[in-house]
């Protein structure tokens, strides 16, 4: 990743992504535990050392008595040595009477608010520049005659407790570090392990024969199994498409072979004749067959071109009215020769759609051809606006409703024995699909059961 591109999670490999997503919370948890153990070690060290304050102050308090009309005590050196601990702390003690007057001690020590329970209260204090832990014991004389209250205040420096807290914290730091290390190894290994089926799938796809479309058979975890099924569905669709193509090629070869065989047979027959009149009639017939075969080949070519998704020509604005008028003009003469009445109906203003002009022309030509071939006597091309529509109506025999989907397939002819190629409507259907049009086949005159006629409408998507 270069410095310029912003960091995006989508760029990360699955392995890294898993690692990051697992390790970040892990680090957070470790930090939380460490923070907690920092405070816990302080508290534990305080508890341990506060017990010394408690014991020392108790041992001093036990020596306090009433003598010579005043509080008196024989300070036990062991109490101070207990306070000093192995860390050789600085120690301070003081005895205060009920009124808060200093009785004896090696320095004045501050008072503390009484504890919620028990006799001892503790605090960290700063006395004369020394950071001390202070413990104050509230007690009273237990003599027969007097029960004066007094306070024993003891304090020591904090070197030992800081050292203990640090030792405790260091121990838990090592623990946490060890656990985090283990967890990291586990995370890295399990991420690798979890992604292993993906590697297997990749290998299985890479090692396949490029021509085979057989479904993938592979034991995979559920999430990847869905991916495998989707892949298999795609492969199944591709198999169907290829089957269609193979059938199309088979049909096309068959369609081409029949007229070619006819041509060959007719030519052979004519060659056995010696009468030029016979030859002429054979040549006439062969010419007709050849022309029909040429048209068939042309239509096959254009159907192949239309079905090629790689070559979708750009759409340009096309005026449907002009298009319809041009088609009618060019076909008028031949229709007139065959005695078919060809007409056009267009609105006054232009109806413009985004389309490929030559394809629409081809579609319209095919529709007109179709109508003529199936014996219509009257064919009308009309253009309608809102939404833009191109419609071809005839008064021919029509197509029964059950046949209407089938006639869109190549080489399916609505009627046996016609001279159509069986490709016309398939081509129209392909063009309609290339333009996002709806192709609707309907009766043009449902009231007439003998010749209901056919009305084919191409409805363009509304420009708006």
């Amino acid at each position, binding site marked *: 990743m270069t410095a310029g591109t912003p960091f995006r999670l989508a760029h990360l490999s699955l392995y890294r992504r898993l690692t990051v997503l697992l390790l970040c919370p892990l680090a957070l948890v470790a930090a939380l535990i460490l923070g907690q153990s920092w405070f816990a070690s302080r508290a534990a060290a305080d508890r341990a050392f506060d017990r010394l304050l408690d014991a020392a102050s108790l041992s001093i308090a036990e020596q306090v008595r009433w003598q010579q009309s005043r509080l008196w005590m*024989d300070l036990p*050196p062991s109490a101070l040595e207990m306070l*000093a601990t192995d860390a050789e702390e600085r*120690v301070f003690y003081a005895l205060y009477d009920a009124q*808060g007057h*200093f009785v004896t001690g090696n*320095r*004045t020590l501050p008072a503390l608010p009484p504890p919620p329970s028990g006799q001892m209260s503790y605090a960290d204090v700063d006395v004369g520049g020394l950071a001390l832990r202070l413990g104050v014991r509230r007690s009273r004389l237990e003599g027969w005659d007097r029960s004066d209250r007094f306070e024993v205040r003891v304090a020591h420096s904090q070197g030992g407790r800081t050292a203990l807290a640090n030792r405790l914290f260091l121990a838990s730091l090592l623990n946490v570090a060890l656990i985090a290390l283990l967890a990291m190894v586990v995370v890295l290994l399990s991420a690798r392990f979890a992604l292993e089926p993906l590697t297997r799938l990749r290998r299985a796809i890479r090692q396949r024969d490029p021509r085979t479309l057989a479904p993938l058979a592979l034991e995979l975890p559920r999430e990847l199994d869905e991916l495998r099924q989707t892949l298999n569905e795609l492969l199944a669709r591709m198999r169907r498409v290829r089957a269609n193509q193979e059938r199309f090629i088979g049909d096309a070869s068959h369609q081409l072979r029949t007229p070619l065989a006819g041509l060959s047979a007719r030519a052979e027959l004519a060659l056995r004749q010696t009468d030029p009149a016979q030859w002429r009639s054979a040549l006439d017939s062969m010419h007709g067959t050849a022309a029909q075969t040429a048209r068939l080949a042309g239509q096959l070519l254009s159907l192949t071109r239309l079905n090629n998704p790689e070559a979708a020509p750009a759409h340009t604005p096309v005026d449907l009215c002009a298009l319809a008028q041009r088609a009618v003009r060019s076909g008028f003469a031949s229709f007139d020769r065959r005695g078919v009445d060809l007409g056009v109906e267009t609105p006054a203003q232009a109806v413009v759609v985004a389309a490929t002009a030559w394809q629409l022309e081809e579609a319209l030509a095919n529709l007109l051809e179709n109508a003529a071939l199936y014996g219509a006597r009257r064919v009308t091309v009309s253009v309608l606006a809102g939404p833009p529509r191109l419609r071809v109506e005839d008064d021919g025999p029509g197509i029964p409703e059950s046949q209407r989907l089938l006639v869109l397939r190549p080489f399916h002819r609505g009627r046996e024995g016609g001279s159509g190629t069986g490709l016309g409507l398939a081509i129209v259907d392909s063009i309609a699909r290339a333009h996002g049009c709806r192709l609707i086949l309907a009766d043009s005159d449902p009231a007439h059961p003998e010749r209901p006629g056919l009305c084919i409408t191409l409805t363009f998507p509304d420009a708006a």
Partner: protein
Amino acid sequence: MHHPDLSRRRLTGALLGLAGTAALGAPALAGTLEFAASTTPATPLTIYGVLDPPQARPLLAAFKQHHPEIALVYHHMDTLALHQRVLAEQDAPQADVIMSPAMPWQYQLANAGLSSTLDSPITAAWPRWARWRHELFGFTFEPIVMVYRRDLAAHMPPPESHAELLARLDAHTDLLKGRVVTYDPRLSGAGYTYAIEDARISARYWDLVAALGRSHTALEATTSAMLEGLSAGRYWIGYNLIGSYAQAYVANHPELEMVIPRDYALVLQRLVMRQRGAPHPEAAARFIDFLLGRPAQTLLATRTTLGAVDPGVSGPGTASALRERLGDAIRPVQIGPGLLATLDTLKRQTLLEQWQQAFANRTTFSDGPLADPAPLPDADKESPSP
């Protein structure tokens, strides 16, 4: 820093006698030794100490030889003056190094945070029993001894231990009446310190005090006064004398004999520390390193009677030699918080009262009747807890 507990008034009594331990019979205690540096630029170094110039001079001269770049000024003063001066100057220290044999007082200064940590290889290797933290170091080893006149042997076998002293006192109460001398704990800080330590070590100490009382033991304020009395024949037995002074004195007085008690012998240590905020901390560290170093310790053992602490130095006058001879009986005064208890006012009063009872308020002190112990602080004048 406010030190109500260390007010001059209350210390006066306790330290009065201690002052006397500093110099043998020399009333003029204050003195200054100066050693100019022989190189330039010179690093100044100021020492406050309680160490007699005759003992200090060879030590400081040796230091000067090792560190000619340091211009050393040694202020000799008595323990009370030293303590007062250090407290007075604590916010703007003038001295770099403080040396004193008044162990509780010295410890109190260090405990209150007036010392600073030294971390050199020498201080780190110093035996644990002779230091506190890395701030306070004992650099001498001076047993507390008994001294008797040689002609005592004509009357009884001379006492070699505390127990024997008690036995002699019990057996010859009348013969020894007024012939035994020891420190007056009311007037001498040193005597008071040894009394406290004796009481801590031995359960029979109070029997000994009672016996001393019965035989009308004389109480003196200084070791030198006791030695002079012994030499003059006024006293036969002296109990709890500072060994370093006694040794030097006995060497010149053949009629006297010094004995280190066999059952247990208290050992006093001079404590040295670098003052917190010392003006010349580097020079101070060098001086203390020198003091604890091999050459200075050897010098202390051979050319002074102070005794060497360093376990690496052997021969007469060293801690190791004394330990070898007396084993577990050697009881150095522990440099620890127990010394603070020694300074507790009420504790002091309790001990002195017990003494007073043992002596049944007899007039035993040449200066007159037993004075009250140092006046206690007036509770009302103490700063109440803040």
